[in-house]
């Protein structure tokens, strides 16, 4: 269980995180989503007591992180990039972390096998690929068999096989009743892995919702209808809350009616339908829509489009 209570972090003039409150519950994977620079990593560092919040409080498993006497058994974390000395072998890195809690060398070998690094465990981490580094980071996080797992962008640099592996791993951890918080800037990845979403932008909470709900909202109720009697159907469907667009002959995009309702109306009036499809706006689009005003860094081209108006988003 992770609780953020009005977390705020300022670096001089710049506010990285502002009045952020949320709760991450055990038993499911929670996605922590936001564009680059939204404050995800800062928030995670505050959860781990590495950065002190300017105001507010972060509580993990009932206590602030620093109050835990055996933190690795409570919270396992992998932070952005690697937090690993490049001159040391994976085995020695884990051994040194394990020693702080008196965790056995047997457990170290266990997590090395778990993440599939057995063959390179004695090699220096400096020579690792990004994906191997991520696996070692995950091994460090799982070392203490913690009830809460916090991973910052774990799929970065992983190949498709690795991504699938991490998805299953996260779901497995959640099904064992652990609290799992995973950050990402990729909505599509989170849609496949997470059940719950916390979306932030420019340090503020934008959404705290289940993935199903998020998808339902994102879908926007657009239904694509194809029929030879498009004009007749358009007249039948028209209503105060209904808007109908048509980009090509014989195809209608209907907003404001469910596909069930459209099918019923068409049947009642003997209109034959060739196609009736609820359209889902892509999740990535929905996410971008949601965070558009909260993107920290935008490419110059994007600014030119809005040039007459407010200028730079940040």
């Amino acid at each position, binding site marked *: 269980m992770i609780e953020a209570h009005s977390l705020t972090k300022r670096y001089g003039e710049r506010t990285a995180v502002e009045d952020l409150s949320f709760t991450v519950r055990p038993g499911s994977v929670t996605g922590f989503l936001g564009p680059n620079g939204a404050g995800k990593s800062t928030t995670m560092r505050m959860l781990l007591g590495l950065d002190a919040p300017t105001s507010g409080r972060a509580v993990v498993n009932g206590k602030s992180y620093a109050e835990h006497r055996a933190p690795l058994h409570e919270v396992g974390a992998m932070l952005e990039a690697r*937090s690993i000395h490049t001159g040391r072998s994976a085995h020695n890195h884990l051994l040194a972390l394990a020693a702080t809690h*008196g965790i056995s060398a047997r457990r170290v070998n266990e997590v090395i096998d778990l993440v599939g690094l057995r063959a390179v465990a004695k090699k220096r981490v400096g020579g690792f690929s990004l994906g191997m580094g991520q696996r070692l980071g995950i091994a460090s996080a799982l070392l203490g068999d913690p009830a809460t797992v916090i991973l910052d962008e774990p799929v970065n640099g992983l190949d498709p096989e690795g991504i699938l592996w991490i998805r299953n791993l996260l*779901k497995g951890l959640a099904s064992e009743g652990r609290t799992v918080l995973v950050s990402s800037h990729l909505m599509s990845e989170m849609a496949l892995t997470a059940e719950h979403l916390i979306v932030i932008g420019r340090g503020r909470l934008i959404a705290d919702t289940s993935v199903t709900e998020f998808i339902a909202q994102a879908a926007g109720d657009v239904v694509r209808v194809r029929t030879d009697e498009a004009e007749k159907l358009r007249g039948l469907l028209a209503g105060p809350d209904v808007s109908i667009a048509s980009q090509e002959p014989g195809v209608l995009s209907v907003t404001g009616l469910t596909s069930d309702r459209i099918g019923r109306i068409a049947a009642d009036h003997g209109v034959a339908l060739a196609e009736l499809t609820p359209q889902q706006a892509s999740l990535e689009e929905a996410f971008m829509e949601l965070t558009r005003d909260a993107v920290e860094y935008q490419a110059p081209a994007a600014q030119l489009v809005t040039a007459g108006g407010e200028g730079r988003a940040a």
Partner: protein
Amino acid sequence: MTTATVIPEAERGQVTQLRVIHSEWIKLRSLRSTLFTLLAAVVAMVGLGFLFSYFTADRWSHLPPEERLNFDPTLVSLRGFYLAQLAVGVLGVLVITGEYATGMIRASLSAVPRRLPVLWAKALVFGAVAWALMTLASLTAFLVGQAALSGHHLGTSLSAPGVLRAVLGAGLYLTVVGLLGVAFGALIRNTAGGIATVFGVLLVLPVLAEALPSSWFDAIDKYLPSTAGQGLIHIHQQPHTLAPWTGFTMFCLYALVALAGAAVALKRRDA
């Protein structure tokens, strides 16, 4: 997918200072850079000790009478400390800044969120290793140097007055240089900056002091960290310096103040 076997409740231990020390010992011995740097310090100590002794003996008949009169055979054989302190000081800085440069510090402080045990453990482990190795190197340098000097009947022995103090003193001085490195590494958190500060204090300050009028220099120089610390290595107390152990105590105090500052900074700053 499962996280394999879980750790039984009985095996879940807390963080203790002793365990953090064990962890730092694993960290120190698992880096090749540690090994090479310590090796360099030993080679500098023993190798230079031999060379200085050998060439002094060789040139003895050409030395001016004044130099012969003040000749300190112990000091000559321990001259390598001047170079060895570079290696030990750099390694002291790296023990901390290596973790900041790689991000390892975040892992270390996540495992030990009270933070200070990490600093104490690093200082203790590195201090102990540096002390043991440098004392051994100092003793070896002394014996090798005396062997080189004895051909000209210039050597001395460990039982002569002040010699043991000087030989052990070189090891102690180098240990405290290493601890200064740890402290400045933790204060500055950057390898280049940390190294520059340590050697600014040890090597540059005395040179700057020489620019002062000589009465000022005589008054100030003895309190400078390097002068105060190195008194232990001289058999004959130099003019305008503190008594050997008084000076060394002063040197230790400087290191303690720097470590205390490092502790405050480590506790307060974001990692």
